[in-house]
Structure formats: C-alpha cells, structure tokens
C-alpha cells in the first residue's frame, strides 16, 4: 500500500509554498516524526515531518519548486510489507488516481473559511477570495496588477475588465508578454494565484542583475501596497524624554544580571505600547468592513529585520507580561526569525505594531500600517537634544515617536490620547512596571 504525501498547509491562510529542500531521498526509510522536507511559505521556512512509517517510494515534486499548491502530492510513501525496490516503477501510476481523490478530501480543510472568530477579516483580507472575472484575472496577470489592490465595480464587488483599465500597471510589460500569455492559457491557469505586485521592470539598458522575488518579498510588497492604497493613514508625532527610562533600565539590568536577562530599550517600549493601548482602548482596534473589532488584549507585533526582508513576531498580551518575560521572548523570537524558523502563529495576528529604527540613527519616521492592524508605532533614535524643562534650557535624551493610525477606525483625538499615554509611560516608567 502506498500513501500520498501532500503539500501541507502550514498556516490557515497558506495556499501554496516552495519546496525548499528535501531532507530524504527515494528509498529512505522514515518513521513518524522524521523530517521530510523544508517548506518555504511567504514568511517562513518550516520543517515538514512524516506522519506515517514507511519508505519514500517516489519524490513527485523536485526540490526548489515554487508555488506548489496545498494538497499537491509531493511524494509517495510505501508502507511496510512492500518491496521498496519495486516502489517507484510500479507505484508510479498509483499516485494519479489517488491524487485525484485525496486532495478533494483533505484540501478543503486549510482552505475552508477562516473561523470567523479567530480571524475576522476586513472587507478583503489576506486569504480572502478575490472576486474577479476570468478576463480580469487574465488581464491582471498580463499587466502585473495585484487584484487585491483593486476595488471591484461588478455585482457584490466583483472585479471586472473595466476596473483594470484605470489601474496602475506593474510598469511596462515586455513586448512579448501579451501574446505569450494568450498562447499559453494552460500555463497561465497553472500559475500561482498570488499575483506578483509588479511584472518585469524597465531596465533602460542599464547593466543590472534581475533577482527573483522571494515569497516573503512578494508578501511584503503586496501587503504594504494594500495598506497604502486602502488604509487612510494619519501620523502623530511626539518627543519623549528617555532619561528616566534609561536609568531604570540600568538599575533593572544590574538586578537581572544574575538571571541572565538584559533588557533592551525596545523591550521596555513594547511594554509601554501594550500598556498604553489598554489605557486607550480606542486605538486597540481593527477596521473590519462594517464592524470594528475592539481587542481586549494588546498583542504587539515587533518588526524584526531579517535577511531578505522583515518579519513581525508577536508578543502576546504585552500589557500584562513582565518586561523580563518580554525580553526573553523577544530574544528567542528574533533569533528564530533570522533563521526563518518562526511558526505562523508566532507572526500572524497582533493588534498593533512597533518598529524601531533608533539603532540606525533615524531621528523620526512614519511607518506603514501592517494590515489588518490599525496602528503602528515608529520609534526614532534616542539622542541628546537641547530640551526646555521648567522654563530652562537643558540637555536631555529625547526620542521622537510617530504613530500611524488607520483613520477609518481611529480618530485623530484618540490617536493623540494614545501618544500622550505612551509618552507618559515612557517618561514615568515605574508606573508601567507596577
């Protein structure tokens, strides 16, 4: 008997992935729990384990294959009692009928409607089906337009041809693209559903290297475009005096050395943002089409720069965790993020984000909201600046913090309240530790 091993859905929204690496080869014996392959999704690389015991009869999808749909048979496992040697040849035909029958049963699970409670979606969130006519899909594909960024004018918001006429094309397309696309309907249909944000650019004859976009880069491009096109941003900046927080950090670190914990300024800012959001719940929200979700916990997504992009691991309940716990969790998450080993539930979700570019000497910046969240706090460098205290000019350590808010969900005055609360907490840090 043989079992088809299918492309797993490693997260609720995963539709396809890259088969980055096979960790087994044909003929290898595996037992439950053995690592079979590394699968790269849009955000992370994950290890895929064997469930059943047997021998790898045939590898159906080659290493490095991109856009492998969830449910695709990637290998055939021959269960004991069969001659492994006879496997690949005699089993070669088996996967075909199996492949037809099994995905039908197993595929719907990951693709089923995201549970309404767990993953409330705004008008159109990631993983939501995009309603578009076949022609609109084909045109978007040919022109490199991201359908997710288009508002449909057809019945129930369906995207139709005319909606694409005014849409910004993904720069000029190669002259051969349209006819090639028309000539290869099959190839077009087989293409991954996640359309690239832009097609090939114009090089103007300048010597260059064309680097294929990684899954993560495509996701970043798509989501940030979506955010800037669909979310009306407002930006509110405050200057915050850091001296007390720095002093407190020194004292805490001295006390925590024994436990091997070293707090960073960022760890304290994560805590401060979490507490501030609980103090100003009007900003701990999400715009969801015709409803507003008001969260009762502040989960902070923290932007972490990693090779080839950026990922936002989450500190859940940052308002109620101790700073030491935040610090320990952050170190672990950042380290695993850099290795691409985060699990989807460690970076999907979050009620607001924090992005700190202080270490790069950036004085102040405005961050792009990470949809479907409604706010992100952008932290600049703490630096000594002339500062007026009680009518006298002094030198103080100051950082500028800028909140970006989804104006559909958050009014300016409420945003200002959050900025004030955040400032108050950072300038009087003892308050948030108690």
């Amino acid at each position, binding site marked *: 008997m043989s079992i088809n091993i299918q492309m797993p859905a490693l997260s609720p929204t995963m539709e396809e992935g890259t088969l980055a690496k096979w960790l087994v080869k044909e003929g290898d014996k595996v037992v439950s729990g053995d690592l079979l392959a590394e699968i790269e999704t849009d955000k992370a690389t994950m290890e895929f384990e064997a469930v059943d015991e047997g021998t790898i009869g045939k590898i159906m999808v080659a290493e490095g294959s991109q856009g492998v749909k969830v449910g695709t048979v990637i290998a055939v496992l021959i269960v004991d009692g069969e001659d492994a040697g006879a496997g690949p040849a005699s089993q070669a035909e088996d996967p075909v009928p199996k492949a037809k029958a099994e995905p039908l049963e197993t595929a719907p699970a990951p693709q089923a409607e995201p549970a309404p409670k767990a993953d409330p979606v705004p008008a159109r969130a990631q993983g939501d089906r995009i309603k578009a*006519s*076949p*022609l*609109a899909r*084909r*045109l978007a594909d*040919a022109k490199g337009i991201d359908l997710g960024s288009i508002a449909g*004018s*057809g*019945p129930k918001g369906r995207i*139709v*041809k005319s909606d694409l006429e005014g849409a910004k094309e993904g720069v000029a397309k190669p002259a051969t693209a*349209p*006819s090639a696309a*028309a000539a290869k*309907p099959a190839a*077009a*249909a087989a293409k991954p559903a996640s359309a690239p944000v832009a097609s090939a650019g114009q090089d103007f004859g300048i010597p260059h290297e064309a680097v294929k976009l990684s899954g993560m880069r495509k996701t970043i491009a798509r989501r940030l475009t979506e955010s800037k096109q669909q979310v009306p941003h407002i930006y509110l900046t405050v200057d915050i005096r850091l001296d007390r927080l720095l002093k407190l950090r020194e004292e805490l670190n001295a006390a925590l050395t024994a436990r091997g914990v070293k707090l960073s300024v960022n760890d304290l800012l994560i805590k401060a943002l979490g507490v501030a959001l609980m103090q100003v719940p009007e900003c701990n929200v999400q715009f969801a089409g015709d409803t507003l979700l008001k969260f009762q916990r502040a989960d902070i997504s923290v932007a972490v720069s990693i090779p080839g992009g950026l990922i936002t691991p989450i500190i859940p309940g940052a308002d109620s965790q101790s700073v030491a716990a935040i610090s320990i969790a952050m170190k672990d998450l950042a380290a695993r993020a850099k290795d691409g080993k985060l699990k989807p539930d460690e970076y999907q979700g979050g009620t607001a984000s924090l992005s700190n570019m202080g270490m790069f000497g950036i004085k102040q910046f405005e961050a792009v909201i990470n949809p479907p969240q409604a706010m992100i706090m952008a932290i600049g460098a703490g630096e000594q600046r002339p500062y007026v205290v009680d009518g006298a000019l002094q030198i103080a350590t100051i950082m500028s913090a800028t909140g970006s808010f989804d104006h559909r969900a958050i009014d300016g005055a409420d945003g200002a309240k959050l900025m004030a609360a955040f400032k108050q907490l950072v300038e009087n840090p003892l308050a948030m530790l108690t």
Partner: protein
Amino acid sequence: MADTYDLIVLGSGPGGYVAAIRAAQLGLKTAIVERESLGGICLNWGCIPTKALLRSAEIFHYMKHAKDYGLAADKISADISAVVQRSRGVAKQLNQGVTGLMKKNKITVHMGQGKLTAPGKLTVTGDGKAEELTAKHIIIATGARARDLPKLKADGKRVWTYRHAMTPPEMPTKLLVIGSGAIGIEFASFYNDMGADVTVVEMLDRIVPVEDADVSAFLEKAVKKQGMTVLTGAKIEAIAAGDSSVTATIKDKTGKAIEAEYSHVIVAIGIVPNVENLGLEDVGVEPDKRFHIKTDEYGRTNVDGIWAIGDVTAPPWLAHKASHEGVIVAEAIAQALGNGDVHPHPMDPNNIPGCTYCHPQIASVGLTEAKAKEAGYEVKVGMFPFIGNGKAIALGEQEGFTKTVFDAKTGELLGAHMIGAEVTEMIQGFTIGKTIETTEAELMHTVFPHPTISESMHESVLAAYGRALHI
C-alpha cells in the same frame, strides 16, 4: 385630491411593466399608465404574436417537406385567417397574464393617455375623463412605432407596417418588403413560407445589415434558395399605391431601374419614438436629434425625477433591453428613495443579444468580426458549420453555423454570431459568457451536452484556436 405614488410608469410594454413589477417588489407604491393594451407592442403587436405566426409558417414548411422525413402530407393548405386568429389568441392570453401580474404586485393601472404637466405631476385622459396623478418619480416607457416612407403613408390596405402585416385582411400574392432589418426579414420569411412571391429591398449592401457579414451572406443565399428575391444596394425611386396594387420603381445596385407591380408592400425601415403629447417639452426633457430621449446609464433624463427606458431611448430597440433597463431604473429609484440594499449596475450594450426569427433564425451578441477589427482588436475567429453537427443532421437542419470572435491578446469573447435552427434559444450561453467576462479557456472547459446543436458553440470556440474536433 390627486393620487400620489412613489413611482408612475408611463407605458406598459416589456420595459414599463417590468419596471413597475420590480419597483413594487422593492416596496414602492407604483402605478402604470397605458393608453392601449397592457403589455405594449411586444406582447400585443410585436415579438409574441409574430412568433405565433412564424410558428404556423414553420409547421407549414415542414408539412410541405414531409417527404424529406419519410412522411406524406397531401392536399395541404394554409388558412391565413385561422393562422392570424391563433396569433391573436396568444397575444390575448399574455395580455391577461400582464393584467394578473399588475394585480398580484398591487400596481394600480390607469388606462388613458398620460401627459406630464410638471416634474412629478401628470394627467391621464381616458374615456373622456381626466385624472391628476402625482409621483416622486416618473419613468417614460412609451416605446416607438414604425417609420413611414416619406411619400407613402401606410394605410393598412395595400401599404402595411408590421402592425397591419400581423392581421392581414387577405393573403398577399406578390409582396414587396422595404427594409431587411429584423422586422422586415421576419415578415418576408413568414409570407414567403406561406406561399407569397416576396421581394426584399435593402438600401445597404447586404440584408440584416447589423449582423456579421458572414451571417448576412449566408441568409441571403438561404432565402434566395427558398424563392425570395433579394435586392441589396437598392433604392425605391418611385412608389404609388392604387386600389388593387402598388407600383414601385426600384433602382438596383447596378443602377438599373426595375418597375414592378405588387399586391402589397410592407414598410420596415425603422422606428420613430413615441415622444409626442407627453408634455416632455413642458418639463424640459431633451430628446436627441432623432427624437429619442437622452438618458445616462441608469436611465436618468436631464430632469430630476424623470427617467426613460426602452425604445423611446437609445438603441438597441429590443424588448429584453427595455425590460433590463426597467429593472435597473426601478432599483436606482428605490435607492434614491433610501433603499440601501439595492445596487443597480448599468448594462453593457455589447452584452445585449439580438434574435431574428427569419428562416433560418439568426442570433448574435457582441461585436461582429468587422466591428471588432474596426475597434482595433486583433481577432481570432472560429467558425463551425452545422453540417459537422450530428444533431443538426438528424433534425434535417444542417443549414447554419456558429461563429465566435475573440480578442487575440486577452482571449476575451468579443462576439458570437449564429444562424440556423434554434439558435435563438442558444445565444444566451454566449451572453452569460460575455456577462461574466469569460475567456476562451472557460468556454473550452465547458462540457456541452451531446447530441445538441449547442455543441457547435463549443466547436466554434475550439476552431478559433485551431482545435475544432469535428471539422
């Protein structure tokens, strides 16, 4: 005190009565004003009664060709008055159907001639009485009538419009049909099948000139084979009606003048919109150069609260276009009155099918090959003749074809053109495809039932991409 409504529809044809029903469904207090018969021209004097006539002609045609099917029918004859009587019966049945629909939907019917006196106000004059009605919105759905020849007015004796042709006082022996659009060619077909000697005169260089050129050429060949005389690129130089005949001088495309005498003439050279005596000029509604009422894509005229649909507006002048406009306008009005649940979407004129019930039938939707090229498309064209279709052969109806036109660059279905048996029942397949913006890929992927003539639709798509199976 004048009766007050949310909506009054002026005219109860397929545009007007459908608009009224949709409005009533949406909870609007609705009235309809009709000066003649509920159902308008379509139901009483147009689409439906002609289909009844043509059905008789078709059966007569089969009887004459019984031998082809191994059957015998001797001494067959046609009784024109019985044929017409059946057609009138059909019209009456449907007219009563509309009366019932109005009742069911609680739509008040006011019989009489309606005239706008101010925006939101109109008087209805009928039976010598006049009543005042007011409404928040008014839809003009008064339709159109046949256009007369400049020098010869149709009188129903020797010179007919479609309306006279539908209830002929006698069977024409030698018939001249002026104009080869849908109405002209349908009556030419009917009287030809019924045994008259028919001549069709068309000013343009081909008959059914709005159809694809391949369809025109095919139809011309087919009707000539049936014994019809077809003169294209021809002009009526002189025409005069006497008591027992009509004399006409026709200049054919070579410039030669043909003088001939006909028992009857059917004038089918187009329509004029019914815009007179409606008070339009008093309330400021502007017609275009040909007196059709100008509207936007939701049927709004230039005057707030006054809307227009159907033949009284821009072409195409087809019953189903009027009905669909009726729905859109009713929804737009409901929305204007505060209903947030309706979302009217404008209609794309390229997605309105056209059907002509001549023999063989014609059905089409979208751009012709020539129009597509004119619009700058690089096209892929597929053609599949019925002779390659098993069902058509079994029916003895191998005369016809299906033609599809695609945008070579995107695979968009631009147009579909069919001629032959039952094509009017099949064109909706392509219309659905166009409405949902299908490409060749979905059409190729569709399983068409066997054995049906509709398989020719599939084959023509395959043919456009060099993949036809049965040719």
